[in-house]
């Protein structure tokens, strides 16, 4: 027998290998599959720099041209030696000048554009089709530069704001006129660096990058851009989705007191079992950051679709001895592209959102059914399963509007096809749902199965519609169908072609009640670097994938949405849910937060994630109710329904390995609790729909952080546990198992009515409340009116003619206001004025319905709907009756339940059957 000693070496070698293996099996998130900043050369370089360590640039030839400020950027000290010693790729050859152009748009938006001049070896990519096409029409024509001080030029930005261009070192500042108080500044810490394109110096210079067996040929070498942005007067910064976090405000990623952290990464990735709290990038990217403080709100947006890394620097990062107050510094780094950046100056946070959505677009107005409840699972297996689930909802009197089919409904993951065994009669199946006013959604992903008998593949490959790999062949990656290619949706022609595929004629088995789900559009490539497409893949116009990666899903979403629009001859509003997104995706549909997990922390993280999406334009968003991976305990599932009922996009979804979790599978009590949660959403549909209208006009999200409504209340600035639905409703989630009580902060300025017990609570205080299993705490803000529909139907479709309930929460002066928006819920006729828009004003014991439909628009939406009940909270007792004008009709006033659902609703003063029409002007006096 050989001595064991002779075996030891291989054994010892084996141990660490197995060690790794075991730990990676234990933690599902495969951290080492994704690059961190240190493994990403441009990030590592930029992150290593200290303030003012980059060779500075100065402006030359500043002038006004074509109504914009233009200048050239040159090194401050000609031929100065690069001091950036840690930068192996820095070039000592004097750089060519950069071209700077600053333009100003209506509403307080400044745009900064910096690119190389025409002598560059290659044109750098500028992301097309994201900015609104009419943006140019809203540009202000600058005519004059002033010189407030030596070495700087200033110009008008907006009422009360001006912009200052500091010449050397080059710096831009947006500030308040008069006080000179800064709002935003660019390069005030001298971290602006622009790696210009150049030819390879010699052949042994290695531009390739390798990561886990993948090689990025990087044929054009390093071309990154980085700079610092300071938000003045800011207590917190927010935005730049998508990251999973339990904090609403962005935590510092660098600086004193910050333990090691990665920067926030913006790189669209399909992350298996993502963590609930991490700065790593997820499915979508919106490079838009907002700041808010007691004195100021501002925003910054960098239109760039390459990988981006953003550091939020903790106070004292530049000078630990003198940490800056009221200012948050950030560093933005991107692998490629140009500087095309927008500065938004506020004043109020809602102004910043209006400014941002003013350039990237407001959210599309959804169809009404899409605002209701969606039932999804990977997978509803066959037509019988669909019928059984549909029947289950009816049997348990739980409304739902949309049933979803995941990838298994297709014939071998060939999208636009049906598994003919499982779904032999798709049209009939959809017809049965449609007969109950319900809709269906099928999944269509961007990877196309490489199968010559599949017509999509055949056409796409013949026409050369696929993304090419670095060698010029059709890129071939692995996804659900196996070997797949990816449509080059950057090309408008290909998008048009794709859109045609959704016609009823082309999409065999589709019907008008069928809508679409785009998944995997990061794009997800199972065998690609970081489960995505190689960066050196080639798109239309010789654009490298690295340059547009973050917008790939956006173009796919756009093409699909346009397909549905075409399908309905431009009359039917599309519904397309996408997983990947970019700035502007709000114009094309909804998104959700991807493959979350059935645990309490993911429930908690869903709120900051959705709030952040709302702040960055994507208000139509939600998280999978119940959690995608894993099996939720019934209590978690119930809590998730109770919270999810307030998400703008309300859908339950589950992984195929999980146990069935249709709402009625957890015993009578839980079924009742879930039914109640869903009913809450259905009763609030008129309110939600009105909020979606507001979002589509102003960009203000449906689900809002408290500080958006209470910008002066500092207590609210980092509250990610509670949120506002519109201006009137505050919701506090319950995120712990068997939680007995919860502390709820109610913002200052108004009192609040607990919608469960009708009790009024003071604002500006944290209240410790008992938690019951039947609901999560919700409050109506005093001074608001919420329209509801309290009759429950199978789906929202049957609620169209149902009467309304108004819930009026009176403030200290017995006044309240609220709005109701109604249209056909389906078409674009509202654009021609076919809608009802009322403002309800209660004052001096008189409720008035005021028409706020602009008279000049014309159009009319007919409705026979009446208000069957008015509930008044906070009215002193003694009211006897109500008198309605015109007509001098009387209605009874009595005590009635605050809600008709559940057994134990408190009574409140109720006007019984006023039966006034929502389309009409009227007043109702309480006597």
């Amino acid at each position, binding site marked *: *027998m*050989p*001595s*064991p*000693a002779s*075996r*030891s070496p291989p054994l*010892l070698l084996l*141990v660490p*290998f*197995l060690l790794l*293996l*075991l730990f*990676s*099996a*234990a933690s599902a998130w*495969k951290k080492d*599959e994704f690059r961190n900043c240190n493994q990403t050369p441009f990030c590592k370089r930029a992150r290593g720099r200290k303030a003012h360590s980059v060779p500075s640039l100065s402006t030359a030839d500043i002038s006004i041209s074509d109504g914009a400020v233009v200048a050239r950027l040159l090194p401050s000290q000609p031929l100065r030696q690069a001091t950036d010693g840690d930068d192996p790729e820095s070039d000592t050859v004097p750089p060519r000048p950069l071209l700077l152009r600053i333009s100003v748009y209506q509403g307080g938006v400044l745009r900064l554009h910096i690119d190389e001049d025409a002598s560059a070896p290659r044109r750098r990519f500028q992301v097309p089709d994201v900015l609104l096409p009419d943006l140019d029409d809203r540009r202000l024509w600058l005519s004059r530069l002033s010189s407030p001080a030596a070495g700087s030029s200033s110009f008008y930005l907006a009422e009360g704001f001006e912009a200052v261009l500091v010449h050397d070192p080059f710096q831009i500042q947006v500030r308040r006129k008069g006080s000179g108080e800064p709002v935003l500044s660019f390069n005030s810490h001298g971290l602006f660096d622009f790696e210009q394109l150049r030819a390879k110096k010699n052949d042994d210079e290695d531009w390739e990058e390798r990561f886990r*067996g993948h090689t990025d040929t990087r044929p054009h070498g390093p071309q990154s851009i980085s700079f610092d942005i300071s938000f003045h007067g800011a207590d917190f910064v927010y935005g730049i989705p998508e990251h999973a976090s339990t904090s609403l405000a962005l935590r510092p990623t660098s600086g004193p007191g910050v333990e090691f952290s990665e920067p926030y990464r913006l790189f669209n990735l399909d992350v*298996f079992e993502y963590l609930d709290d991490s700065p790593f990038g997820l499915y979508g990217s919106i490079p838009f950051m907002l700041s808010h403080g007691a004195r100021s709100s501002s925003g910054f947006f960098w239109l760039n679709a390459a990988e981006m890394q953003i550091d939020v620097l903790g106070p004292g990062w530049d000078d630990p001895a003198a940490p800056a107050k009221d200012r948050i510094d950030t560093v933005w780094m991107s692998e490629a592209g140009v500087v095309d950046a927008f500065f938004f100056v506020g004043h109020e946070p809602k102004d910043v959102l209006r400014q941002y959505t003013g350039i990237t677009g407001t959210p599309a107005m959804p169809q009404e059914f899409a605002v209701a409840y969606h039932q999804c699972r990977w997978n509803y*297996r*066959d037509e*019988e*399963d669909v019928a059984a689930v549909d*029947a289950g909802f009816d*049997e348990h*009197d739980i*409304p739902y509007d949309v049933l979803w089919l995941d990838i*298994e409904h297709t014939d*071998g993951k060939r999208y636009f096809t049906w*598994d003919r*065994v*499982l779904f032999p009669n798709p049209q009939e199946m959809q017809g049965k749902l449609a007969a109950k*006013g319900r809709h269906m959604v099928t999944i269509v992903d961007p990877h196309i199965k490489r199968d010559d008998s599949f017509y999509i593949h055949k056409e796409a490959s013949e026409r050369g519609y696929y993304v090419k790999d670095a060698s010029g062949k059709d890129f071939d*990656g*692995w*996804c*659900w169908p*196996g*070997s797949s290619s990816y449509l080059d949706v950057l090309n408008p022609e290909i998008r048009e072609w794709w859109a045609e595929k959704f016609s009823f004629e082309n999409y065999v088995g589709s019907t008008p009640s069928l809508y679409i789900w785009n998944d995997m559009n990061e794009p997800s*490539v*199972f*065998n690609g670097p970081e*489960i995505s497409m190689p960066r050196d893949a080639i798109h239309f116009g010789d654009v490298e994938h690295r340059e547009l990666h973050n917008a790939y899903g956006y173009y796919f979403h756009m093409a699909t949405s346009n397909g549905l629009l075409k399908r309905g001859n431009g009359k039917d509003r599309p519904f397309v849910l996408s997983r990947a997104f970019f700035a502007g995706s709000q114009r094309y549909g909804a998104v959700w937060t991807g493959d979350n997990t059935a645990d309490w922390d993911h429930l908690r993280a869903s709120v900051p994630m959705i709030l952040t999406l709302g702040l960055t334009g994507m208000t139509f968003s939600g998280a999978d109710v119940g959690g995608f991976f894993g099996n939720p305990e019934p209590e978690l599932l119930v809590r998730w329904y109770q919270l999810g009922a307030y998400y703008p996009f309300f859908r339950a979804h589950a*992984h*195929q*390995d999980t*146990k069935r979790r249709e709402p009625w599978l957890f015993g009578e009590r839980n079924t009742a609790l879930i039914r109640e949660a869903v009913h809450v959403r259905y009763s609030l549909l008129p309110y939600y729909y009105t909020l979606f209208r507001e979002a589509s006009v102003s960009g203000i999200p449906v689900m809002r952080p408290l500080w958006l409504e209470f910008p002066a209340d500092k207590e609210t600035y980092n509250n990610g546990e509670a949120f506002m639905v519109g201006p009137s409703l505050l919701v506090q989630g319950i995120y712990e198992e068997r939680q007995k009580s919860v502390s709820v902060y109610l913002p200052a300025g108004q009192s609040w009515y607990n919608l469960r017990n009708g009790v009024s609570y003071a604002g500006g205080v944290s209240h410790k409340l008992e938690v019951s299993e039947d609901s999560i705490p919700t409050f109506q803000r005093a001074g608001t009116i919420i329209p509801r529909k309290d*009759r429950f*139907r*199978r789906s929202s479709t*049957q609620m169209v*003619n149902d009467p309304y309930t108004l819930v009026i929460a009176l403030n200290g002066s017995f006044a309240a206001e609220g709005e109701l928006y109604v249209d056909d819920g389906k078409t674009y006729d509202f654009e021609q004025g076919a809608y009802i828009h009322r403002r309800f004003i209660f004052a001096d014991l008189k409720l008035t319905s005021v028409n706020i439909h602009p008279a000049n628009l014309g159009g009319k939406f007919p409705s026979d709907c009446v208000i*069957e009940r008015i509930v008044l909270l906070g009215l002193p007792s003694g009211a006897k009756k109500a008198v309605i004008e015109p007509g001098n009709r009387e209605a009874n006033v009595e005590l*009635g*339940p605050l809600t*008709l659902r559940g*057994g134990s609703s408190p009574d409140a003063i109720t006007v*019984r*059957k006023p039966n006034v029409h929502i389309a009409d002007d009227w007043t109702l006096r309480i006597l």
Partner: protein
Amino acid sequence: MGAFLRISLTISCLSLFWISASASIPSRESLGIAPQDLSYYKSDVIKCKDGSKKFTKEQLNDEFCDCPDGTDEPGTSACPQGKFYCPNAGHIPLTVFSSRVNDGICDCCDGSDEYNGNVNCPNTCWEAGKVAREKLQKKIATFQMGVTVRRQEVEKAKQAFAQDKAELSKLKSEEKILKEHVQKLKEQKERIEKAEEEERKKREEEQRKKREAERKANEAKKAFEESSHDNSDHASEILSELPNQDAMEDHHDSAIEEKSDYTAETEILDSWAVGKVANDHDDTIAKSGDETDDTSEESSFSHVEKQHLVGDQEGTMPEANTGDYTRSKEAPSSHVVEEGQVSDNTEGLSREELGRLVASRWTGENAAEEEDGVNTVKEERHEHDENIPEENHDGYNSDSDEDHNFDDDDLEDDPDMEFGDHGEPAGTYSYNGDDKTDYSDLTASGSLSWLDKIQQTVSNVLQAINIFKSPVNISEADAVRKNYDDSSSKLSKIQSRISSLNEKLKHDFGKDKEFYSFYDHCFESKQNKYVYKVCPFKKASQVEGHSTTQLGYWDKFEESYRVMLFSNGDRCWNGPDRSLKVRLRCGLKDELLDVDEPSRCEYAAILSTPVLCVEEKLKELQEKLKDANANRPSVNDEL
């Protein structure tokens, strides 16, 4: 319609009994109210049923919800918790949620739920009622026959049960007798063997002495012949033995060395062994017994690792890992290795392998599997009957199922359901488990029972042999041995039969022992490429070609003998242990009709059997038919 309503108000007293063929709209005061409930609404001030408040007659069905429980709005949609009663003349009355009232969808076959004129619901009660009654009649016919079959079956089962019981007690007494005989024979045999052994030793001793003598004689002769030679032969003999001795010492040393090394490694492994428990849990337990003295060649890394794990399992496993522990326990260790490769060693993989591996995280499929892994899943499913989950439900029993929606397809537990959509039932057969042994010789009857025969032979043998006779008579000894072998094998057969009877009889076979015959039966159903085998009281499996997946082992009856539960089957990757629920229903033959997987790795099947054709249910059905006929509309309905 409004006018109509007003008219019917004027004749409200009549309308209680007046039923119209088409849109039969009762008065506002009786709209949506079940006849047996009408008296509740008689008074001028009516209480909400939940006692919360009162309302006036004017408030009844006035489209405004006064009672949160819906008492005041039985005929409108105003109360979310209300219920609406449709008379459904010509068919069976139905109670629907009041959310169905005037929602534009026809729910009651008489159309009474849609009276606001937005939609015209034709009265389909007569046709539907006819169909339903026919179905009901058919079902009753099946039950009637089934009840007879069941009676016979129960009789048979009782007999078989009694027989088995009797056999058991008989076997037990036989076992006792036989045990004694075997004991005697054993003693006899041992004595013989002892004697033989002594004889053998004696013989050997003699032979040894004889050889010794010969050797000595030879040596003396050799020494004399080769006295000038080296003892070279002898020397080389010694030399050749030397290495062996070295090896012995080496072995000894290395054992010590190994031991110390081993401890060191144990410490190294300490930090991660916990994680490893996951994969090798089963192995560990299996091997823990023989590890300490395992010094063989196989004493390699894995041995050390496993041994260490035993210790860990005894109580030091940190909490934090228990989640993963259960989770990866199910995963074959090979899979974990694959996963590990993904995160650690993907560079060696082809692009396709990598793609499959990553995909498998979501799907849980073996990455090495062919592309049609997806199809496997697909084919597992098949068209299942939507009625299955509702088996218990009886849509027409409006007393107990008020909530239930009226639905024409609802006669779900119709035993004559067409089987066209289902996999073919491949029939039943008797159970052929692994433990099946041939007991025919135990039960064979002849003029002389086998036990008597044995008894006779044994006493013959015992008498015939003189054990003290030496040398032992070989043929006699053989006879003893043979007898012993025969008897003890017989005994073990009896014992195994006893234990299998005990095993059988311990089960719960139902109130009338009606499931007794199921014990030795299996039911099969072929669906696509799978054959499902259900062996009650034993196990259920899914067979595909040569591979068998256990769907579960017998657990119990549920829902008062209407469901057979098999649980703890093969574990699913990333899922639960497989399990199967077999729902039983009345049918004239034993047939496994349908196997489905409604939830991941949780299977469901239907077994039709006369055993479920119980008389009470038959009476219930007959009662129902009577009601249905009684509810037949007057003559004008048939016009």
